[in-house]
């Protein structure tokens, strides 16, 4: 009869997840499914996600789309859901281990970081080896997305990441420091101020997402350095892409949450109809929904799209 | 006496949940007199004066001041109408200074621009007046008018509360057991103060359990029992034994309340 699905996101306050929910809702309507959306209270709130999965089991859902806050911690309850015959698809963030979910539709966050790292290095050219880089990360708890993007950037920029699962153990002299932003403007501004005070010669800023980048830009503007610092970011939301157009952000790695959600919904529909589970992308252990670098200043050796194309695919 | 009462209450009722603290209580206060109110614990004496002074709103009944019906919604209204009260628990703010406490709710502002537009208080003027009032009443020697009230002894606090009422009461001064916790010496001072206030022409309502004190200073005695006025007696016509007998129900009271 009626196919019902659940979408569980980390929060319902981050535009990224809001768009994901919109995409899923639109697709559900198109396919005639019912969709219930849940979210944690803040990033890192795993218990609410556990409760949400349990609710989906009680609700008799056919499938769950999940962006996990705690990729390891959530595994037992995901297993419970799968045991109850529910298709669990990890969206955006792979579980740990990745095969804990039936399937994963995700951006390669490491690649997203790597792309902006490469672009920044290529844009600076020779100056890259004397660059002063500031890292504006997510939260003190170092969630996996944050780690992947951060360490991806370092890899792309040509820094030694040491333990690739840990932020802050590097000793590359070009790293001015890491600070946390909570992924919003407020945190971005304060973190940027702190790092600028630590070293006023910063000329590259890695940011976890575009709101943090916007905050960092305000801070640079306040000291009159908005023109000579390169800000790179990840997300590809419409305000973010607009900021790339206007030169606030140099380049951003665009993800496709709407697509992730839509693909996920289709997979659930298919599973409900035929019992068939989605297959991962060739050569990867997850279904890659793709990431593209958006910039108006393409750098050689790094594939990118311009902001016009970016605006067409942006999500909020 | 042909004089009209300055303050009257008729048929006051106040219920607290299942307790009826006032049960159609009447009350009359004549100009220039000291009216004592006596009664057992829980008879409703404090409730009566709280109703009269606006601290609680009676459920029924009416209050008249100088013949005009009044409806006090708070002690502020009563104070504006000239009724000053010393409550059983004193009602002082411990952390504020003596001067602040005396002028609470009737602060003096600076003259001119500062006072009118910036509403700046005239601390100096208030301190001066407070010191003058305390000295005038000869009540006690307080070194520093800016001392916080919490640093004063019980007797000194009682003094401040009484002085405040005596200084600002323009029509009626009410005192609820002003000497309950006081020593012999301190009690005597308060009694003298009460007589002092009367000699300035103000009528006073005095609640007390101390019969000798009551018979010493009162012009009339209002006997309260089971939430209502039982009778009013003239202390010159009855003995303390009579009063206590009426108050505790040991003897039937004279039915007709006597006038002052």
């Amino acid at each position, binding site marked *: 009869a009626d196919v019902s699905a659940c979408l569980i996101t980390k929060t319902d306050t981050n535009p990224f997840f809001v768009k994901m929910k919109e995409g899923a809702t639109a697709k559900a309507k198109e396919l005639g499914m019912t969709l219930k959306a849940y979210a944690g209270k*803040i990033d890192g*709130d795993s218990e609410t996600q556990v409760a949400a999965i*349990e609710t989906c089991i009680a609700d*008799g859902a056919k499938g769950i789309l999940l962006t996990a806050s*705690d990729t390891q911690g959530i595994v037992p309850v995901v297993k419970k859901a799968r045991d109850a015959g529910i298709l669990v698809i990890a969206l955006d963030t792979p579980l*740990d281990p990745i095969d804990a979910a039936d399937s994963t539709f995700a951006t390669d966050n490491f690649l997203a970081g790597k792309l902006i790292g490469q672009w920044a290095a290529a844009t600076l050219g020779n100056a890259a080896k004397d660059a002063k880089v500031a890292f504006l990360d997510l939260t003190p708890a170092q969630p996996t997305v944050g780690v992947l993007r951060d360490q991806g950037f370092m890899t792309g920029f040509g820094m030694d990441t040491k333990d690739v699962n840990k932020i802050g153990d590097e000793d590359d002299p070009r790293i001015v420091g890491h600070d946390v932003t909570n992924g919003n403007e407020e945190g971005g501004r304060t973190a940027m101020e702190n790092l600028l005070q630590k070293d006023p010669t910063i000329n590259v800023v890695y940011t976890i997402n575009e709101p943090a980048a916007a905050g960092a830009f305000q801070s640079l503007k306040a000291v009159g350095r908005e023109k000579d610092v390169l800000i790179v970011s990840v997300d590809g939301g419409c305000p973010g892409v607009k900021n790339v157009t206007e030169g606030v952000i140099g380049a951003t790695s665009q993800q496709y949450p709407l697509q992730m959600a839509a693909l996920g919904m289709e997979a659930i529909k298919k599973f409900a109809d035929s019992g068939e589970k989605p297959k991962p992308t060739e050569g990867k252990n997850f279904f890659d929904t793709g990431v593209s670098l958006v910039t108006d200043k393409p750098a050689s050796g790094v594939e990118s799209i311009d902001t016009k194309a970016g605006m067409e695919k942006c999500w909020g | 006496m042909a004089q009209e009462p300055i303050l009257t209450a008729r048929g006051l009722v106040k219920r607290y949940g*299942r307790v*009826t603290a006032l049960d159609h209580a009447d009350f009359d206060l004549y100009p220039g007199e000291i009216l004592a109110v006596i009664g057992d614990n*829980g008879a409703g004496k404090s409730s009566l004066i709280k109703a009269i002074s606006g601290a609680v709103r009676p459920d029924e009944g009416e209050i008249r001041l100088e013949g005009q019906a009044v409806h006090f919604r708070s002690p502020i209204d009563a104070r504006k109408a000239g009724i000053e009260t010393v409550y059983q628990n004193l009602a002082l703010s411990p952390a504020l200074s003596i001067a602040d406490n005396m002028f609470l709710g009737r602060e003096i502002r600076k003259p001119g621009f500062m006072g009118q537009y910036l509403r700046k208080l005239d601390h100096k003027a208030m301190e001066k007046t407070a010191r003058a009032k305390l000295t005038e009443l000869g009540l006690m020697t307080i070194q520093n008018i800016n001392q916080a009230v919490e640093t004063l002894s019980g007797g000194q606090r009682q003094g401040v509360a009484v002085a405040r009422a005596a200084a600002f009461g323009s029509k009626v001064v009410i005192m609820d057991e002003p000497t309950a916790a006081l020593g012999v010496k301190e009690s005597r001072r308060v009694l003298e103060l009460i007589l002092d206030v009367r000699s300035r022409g103000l009528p006073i309502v005095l609640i007390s359990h101390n019969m000798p004190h009551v018979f010493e200073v009162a012009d009339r005695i209002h006997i309260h029992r089971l939430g209502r006025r039982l009778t009013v007696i003239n202390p010159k016509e009855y003995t*303390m034994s009579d009063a206590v007998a009426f108050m505790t129900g040991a003897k039937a009271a004279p039915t007709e309340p006597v006038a002052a």
Partner: protein
Amino acid sequence: MSEPTTAAPHHEYEKVLKESSTEVASFDTHDRTALQKFQHFLHSSPSAVSLIVLVLSLIIFGAMLGSKFFSAFALTLILQQVAITGIVGAAQTLVIMTAGIDLSVGAIMVLSSVVMGQFVFRYGFPPSIAILCGFALGALCGYINGVLVARMKLPPFIVTLGMWQIVLATNFLYSANETIRAQDIEATAPMLQFFGNTFRFGGAVLTYGVIVMVLLVALLWYVLNHTAWGRHLYAVGDDPEAAQLSGVNVKRMLISVYVLSGVICALAGWALIGRLGSVSPTAGQFANIESITAVVIGGISLFGGRGSILGMLFGALIVGVFSLGLRLLGTDVQWTYLLIGVLIIAAVAIDQWIRKVAG
């Protein structure tokens, strides 16, 4: 010393007292209306209001959602979902009954669970010892709170606010933000997941965590109502000075309450491992708010000395019922938060109204 005969009253007037009437003030005797009787009943049984709200909300959601909600499975699911809040809420109840508040419960819970996990996986302790260490840690944190509150007379709000930050920071520094995976725990130290075990009858699924919560609340109910310690706790919350003067060792009581609160938080930490399967240093961030909400909706006075721990349990269940019910209805999560906010205010407003009217 000469044994005097009963002395004669000094005052003549006191002699008349012998004849004094023994009448007492008359109360209104008019028959009380049904509403007033109901109010009186509510007033005399502090957890009745929350129980009624709980039953009503069960009925309403049951009517709206049918068997999806009103099934053994869904109802026991609610129990599972509130188990942690219920255990932490029990700790919070004890502290709030002493007119305090414990903002550090969530942090202590998480740090205890991290210690239990890391002591096994980092240092190779046997699980039973590691669990004991977790409990010891909870007790220690509680003890520090208790000493600061009881001996140094600092306000509980501030002490536990500071403690919260300290413990949480310690938690992140110590754990290095590392989650211990469920699979590893299952393989090495299944005892840590003890409270995750379930037994079922029919559709009902009860975890050991649920059982321990119910047992804990029952035990504390007994202790609060039927032992001297419990009566002393009420007395301390009511008026600590009076309690001290009438023979209660207030400092020792306060310290014991905070220590017990810490121990219960450690228990919650253990149960948390059972619920999540894994040990996660980021868990339990809302345990403070949730436990306080449960206590408040349960009709326990923040001023101390009044209320029943059963009310806390009902309060937690009310939140659980609303959360699950609204989720199953598919409303936006934010509406749930909004409703719980309204519920909190409504709960105390009703409580205040009962107190006022029933006098």
